């Protein structure tokens, strides 16, 4: 039976600020999941801390609202325990690239088959607007007493360097385009990173909805020119198609160069995709032939009366001395 959008909505009260970019992301997630028709009980949405961290509560799937910065290892644990589940992690840029930066980088090394959506707004919203990792040097959003003293991270570049096999960017208010990107990220075989430009209407008065829609950037006819453009319509192709390492390196370089474009012309879409790198589950399966068909979370471990199914007699016999 096809899923309806309402099947994916929980009845939990949403307390995001009016006009928050998070609403766009939530809608896109719900639309994507409905279109993919994934059984909500076979799915987990795992979040960190912050406004974005509340996302799972608004979705009618298994929800895991974790600790600040730790959505990825929690999500990895769920997925490796049962690779037959669909797992989506989400969190803010502070959650993922500040306090959780170590997990962000190392998750790239593993390439677990799941998707990670970053709500990228340059501020720590829920603690009232401190500068977060993607905010550029010298920017002074209205909640900051002084301009940002740190440089901003380039999340796409960081993801590429870390080994993510799907790197994309979306925009929270282009919900249809974002929905397509989320579907691609979820369907990607490997770890997909999706950075979403997400205006925070309360604390980031620089990277606003109006800014992204072209306020102050007018064409010859005086019309505002949107600051985002879609990569695919420019003929850009980030997909690796062969096992040739040279091709992979070229595509990574191309994506890295593209990731420098930010501001008046900011690309959105898929920067890089490579399904030829084995997933972590495939690597585990190569070592443990029973892993895929009988994963940790689904294994029966006890028989009747609690008798352990595992036998360690051989291992004990190896230690026999007489």
């Amino acid at each position, binding site marked *: 039976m096809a899923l309806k959008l309402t099947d994916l909505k929980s009845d939990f009260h949403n307390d995001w600020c009016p006009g928050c970019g998070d609403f766009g992301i939530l809608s896109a997630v719900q639309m994507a999941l409905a279109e993919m028709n994934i059984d909500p009980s076979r799915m987990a949405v795992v979040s960190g801390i912050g406004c974005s961290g509340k996302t799972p509560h608004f979705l009618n799937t298994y929800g895991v*609202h974790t600790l600040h910065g730790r959505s990825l290892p929690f999500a990895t644990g769920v997925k490796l325990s049962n690779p037959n589940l669909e797992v989506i992690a989400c969190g803010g840029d502070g959650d993922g690239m500040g306090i959780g930066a170590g997990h962000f980088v190392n998750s790239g090394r593993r390439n677990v088959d799941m998707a990670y959506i970053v709500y990228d707004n340059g501020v720590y919203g829920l603690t009232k607007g401190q500068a977060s990792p993607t905010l550029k040097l010298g920017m002074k959003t209205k909640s900051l007493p002084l301009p940002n003293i740190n440089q901003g991270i380039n999340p796409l570049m960081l993801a590429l360097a870390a080994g993510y096999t799907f790197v994309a960017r979306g925009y929270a208010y282009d919900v249809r385009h974002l929905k397509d990107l989320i579907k691609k990220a979820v369907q990607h075989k490997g770890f997909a990173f999706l950075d979403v430009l997400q205006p925070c209407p309360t604390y980031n008065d620089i990277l606003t909805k109006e800014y992204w829609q072209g306020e102050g950037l007018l064409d010859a006819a005086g019309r505002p020119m949107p600051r985002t453009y879609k990569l695919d319509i420019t003929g850009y192709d980030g997909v690796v198609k062969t096992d040739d390492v040279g091709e992979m390196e070229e595509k990574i370089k191309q994506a890295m160069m593209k990731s420098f474009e930010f501001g008046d012309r900011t690309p959105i879409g898929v920067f890089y995709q490579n399904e030829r790198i084995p997933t972590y589950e495939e690597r585990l399966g190569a070592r443990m032939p029973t892993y895929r068909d009988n994963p940790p979370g689904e294994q029966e471990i006890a028989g009747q009366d609690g008798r352990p199914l595992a036998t360690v007699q051989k291992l004990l016999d190896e230690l026999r001395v007489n």
Partner: protein
Amino acid sequence: MERNDFSWMIGGAQGSGVDTSAIIFAKSAAQGGLRVYGNREYYSNIKGEHSYFRVRLSKDQIRSHVDTVDMLATFDDETAVRHAWEVRKDGAIIYDPSLGSNPIENIQTIEANVESRLYSKLDANGLPHTVDGVLEIARRNGVHIYAIPYLELLKKVGEQVGETSLSALTKMTNVMAVAASFALLDYPQDEVINAIRKQFKSKPKAAEMNVAMIAITYDYVREKYNGSFGYKLRTIPTTEKRILLRGSTTIGMAKILSGCRLQTYYPITPASDESEYLEAHENIDLEVMVDNELKSMKGAVTVVQTEDEIAAVTMAIGGALAGSRASTSTSGPGFSLMAEGMGWAGINEVPLVITLYQRGGPSTGLPTRHEQGDLRFALHTGHGDFPRIVLASGDLEEMFFDVTRSFNYAEKYQLPVVHIVDKAMANSDMTYKMFDPSLAKIERGLLIKGAVPGHEDGPFDRFKETATGVSPRPAIGTKGGIYWNTGDEHDEKGHISEDPLNRDMMMEKRMRKLDLAAEEIPLEEKVHFFGPKDAQITLVSWGSTKGAILDAMEALNAEGLSVNFLQIRLVQPFPTDYVKDVLSHAKKVIDVEMNYSGQLGGVIREMTCVPVERYIVKYNGRPMSSEEIYDAVKKIADGSAPNRIVLRNGA
């Protein structure tokens, strides 16, 4: 003269085969029916620093080491000068005569303070600052000194087997020290050869070279030192099937048995050995009942090395949410990083097992040395109040079966369990009667997998208030079981809630589970009591001091000083009534612990209001010996010592 109890030590630079030779020594003896207790001491270093291994043998059950050494086997200069002092009168030191004239100042790895201590002893005896000088003091103290010209004998082996490479030959030096030891003890050569063949079963060439070496060493010792050493070591025929077990292996194996299917870890001494064992044995054997017939099948344990301990604990929690029995193993610094994750598991009622290998703290502390300094921390890890179970094993057999108990507690009461072990147990080797794994029983509590019966649609009340505090728990992926987890206080479905009435209900629901655990867990899992019911002295302790305490207790009781011992295993929920009853009726209570502050003593006072006023403590990183405990108990018993004795033995 035959001895019931013999203490042997071998030492050398890390990476020179000290461990291997000690294991060969232990196996040779165990094969012959002797009981073995071995423990390893080493620096936080890869190669070059000094390490040593002590092996104690007996015809009776032994559970700890003794400080005095009956035979010291050395093949380098450092071991001789460091440990010659520990050898008892009539004992023996085996050394390489070509190193005798080596000046102590040339031994780079000896610390300046150790060096000056050696010099003052040598100066007082008018002896040179050399290996020979130190050995001369030992000789004057009645120790037999046996020179074994390793290189000369190895060349002879080379001639016999046609091996000309000196480096291939000198690789056998460590095992030659073992062979020389057994030859001096007149122990059957065949037992040593058998152990060698087993040890090198994948390297037949090395095995045969070692066998030739053993014969040449035995011949040399017989000819040169025939019968000069007073002790003889004899085999003791036994029909009991025995194993030689190491602590870290014990827990790894027990996790396989107990159904742990996801283990996460970040490398840390001394915890990682267990995870590596699991990874090496990740494809496991199952016996599954199919159509009333037991069929052999394969399964797997997934081991993930994470980027840090925060990832290790949170990944294990994720695994547990999705239905795995999941655990992580760590040591002090890593456990500190797990504090926040543990609180999350607490508020979300996730069954999580953390195996905590204590080592010397605080901070990096003594990373390769022993301590029991984390009891208070394990009881209070994380902010806020949440229920947890803290279980402390006292020896390798307890460790084995406590792993299953830990997972059972975690799943039955849906909370984090800290299973406390320590460096001394992780790095000790001991003979046991073959374990019976069928004694282990798995209990998974109110876990639901597949589909929630009678509930197909709509969110599930995962955190439903119940009389016991325990509610049905669907694994993620269960049909009809959708619910939410959050580190925030939450309602029965798992949604964030700051409502004060809900808060009270949830806090009380969670904490109530501890009352249930306290009621259901049998007394024999909570405490062990040893010795006469009424005694002049009652020792109370927890963890690996058990072995040394039992050995000391036997000796003291044999002498007529009556001593009993209360071992506390379950520290949370605390067996308050039982402990209060025992201690308030005891004549003289002494708390014995490997930490500065007597952490258990404080917990006992807090929980029972019984003051613990006498302490035997130790915190120099080296495990307590039974002799130290024996001496200290005697002093406290006769009133010749203050109420707090600090033990300081160990090199």
